[in-house]
């Protein structure tokens, strides 16, 4: 479909500083426009890409993390594990070690520092990943269990699943909102970051946070403005030192809103939007190939 040279397993992360900016709209429709692609829903706290793709699932896998367990007959209360734990997931009260599983980040450090080897590991189930197909798009979706607080291990599992796939396809990563650990994990392997911005002052503020993160990771990036209307746009006050390019503006359009709110994939329903997202995809591929040229 395109003559531009780029690697076949290109990974494009779609991110934004806030929810509701249009990450899922973009990543779902770009994946559908690309065809023979992978779509990864890394927003494991509230995944919704599968609602659009309605895939036929063919695999499901539980995700576990390691949590320390103490053998009280061995522990002598030296508290080396308490001193080590950056998250303070351990306490020593009435000659007993208490472990707060919800606070633990599964680093395993307490087990290493225990001089008596009183600590061992156990598995804790925190969620699952599912793989399925929707027409020619492969859908990878992660879901964290209610009450668990860190989705990072689930995102790791999603990306590891995508790496182990035998066919090389372009991959579109639907990131969680914001710029926290789970977003860093989601963009880590990406070749290109596409930032979605709303045309408001708030949208601009959120963009700045994510742009800082993307620069920190040294990722090539570009912006798409969603819900764009004619006239003054307070988000577009880019200063001269901003090197980021606005690739496309998605119009604030009733047809688009209606299809999306009915969980339809716009490129599969509207010829106009199929062309729109295909053209955006070409522009992204062009950006990536330019990056490859300038960087090598």
């Amino acid at each position, binding site marked *: 479909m395109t003559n531009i040279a780029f690697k076949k397993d290109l990974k494009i992360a779609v991110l934004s500083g806030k929810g509701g900016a249009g990450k899922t709209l973009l990543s779902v429709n770009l994946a559908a426009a690309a065809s023979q692609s992978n779509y990864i829903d890394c927003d494991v706290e509230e995944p919704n890409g599968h609602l659009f793709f309605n895939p036929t699932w063919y695999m499901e896998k539980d995700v576990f993390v390691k949590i320390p367990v103490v053998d009280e007959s061995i522990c002598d209360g030296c508290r080396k594990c308490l001193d080590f734990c950056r998250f*303070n*997931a351990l*306490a020593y*009260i009435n000659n007993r070690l*208490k472990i707060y599983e919800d606070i633990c980040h599964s680093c395993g450090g307490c087990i290493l520092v225990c001089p008596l080897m009183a600590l061992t590991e156990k598995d804790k189930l925190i969620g699952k990943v599912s793989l399925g197909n929707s027409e020619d798009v492969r859908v990878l979706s992660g879901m964290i269990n209610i009450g668990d*607080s860190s989705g990072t291990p689930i995102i790791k599992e999603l990306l590891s699943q995508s790496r182990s796939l035998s066919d090389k396809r372009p991959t579109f990563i639907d990131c969680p909102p914001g710029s926290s*650990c*789970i977003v860093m994990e989601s963009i880590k392997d990406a070749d290109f970051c596409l930032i979605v911005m709303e045309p408001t002052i708030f949208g601009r503020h959120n963009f700045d946070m994510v742009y800082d993160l993307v620069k920190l990771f040294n990722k090539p990036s570009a912006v798409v403005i969603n819900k764009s209307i004619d006239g003054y746009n307070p988000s577009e006050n880019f200063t001269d030192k901003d090197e980021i390019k606005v690739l496309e503006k998605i119009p604030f359009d009733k047809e688009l809103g209606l299809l999306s709110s009915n969980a339809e994939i716009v490129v599969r329903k509207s010829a106009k939007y199929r062309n729109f997202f295909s053209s955006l995809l070409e522009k992204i591929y062009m950006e990536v190939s330019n990056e490859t040229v300038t960087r090598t």
Partner: protein
Amino acid sequence: MKIAIPADNNNIDSKVSQSFGRAPFFLIYDTETEKSEFLNNTAASLQGGAGIKAAQLIVDSKASALLAPRCGQNAADVLKSGNISIYKIEATSLMENITAFKENRLALLQDIHTGFHDKYRV
């Protein structure tokens, strides 16, 4: 018996700190000898788990009761394991609360909040 109160400053004229885990100091007051001692809350500036760490400090101080405006779930759990009762206080000065405690005017803290950590943790 010894009682603990979160304090904004390390003197007896200080106000009560509205936070437990993030309080700058703890007053440890001995109701028998009427002696007061201030502990630096080393947990105050921690990134996470401040409630657990602060509660560990109180347990280690051998206090039998904590007097606080509020307390999070993890901290309350540590204190409970250490057999420390938590009393709810409303007055702003340390001395007023000590007097109220001595006169048995304080009720046990019932509304333990679930903590603010989960919502914003990265």
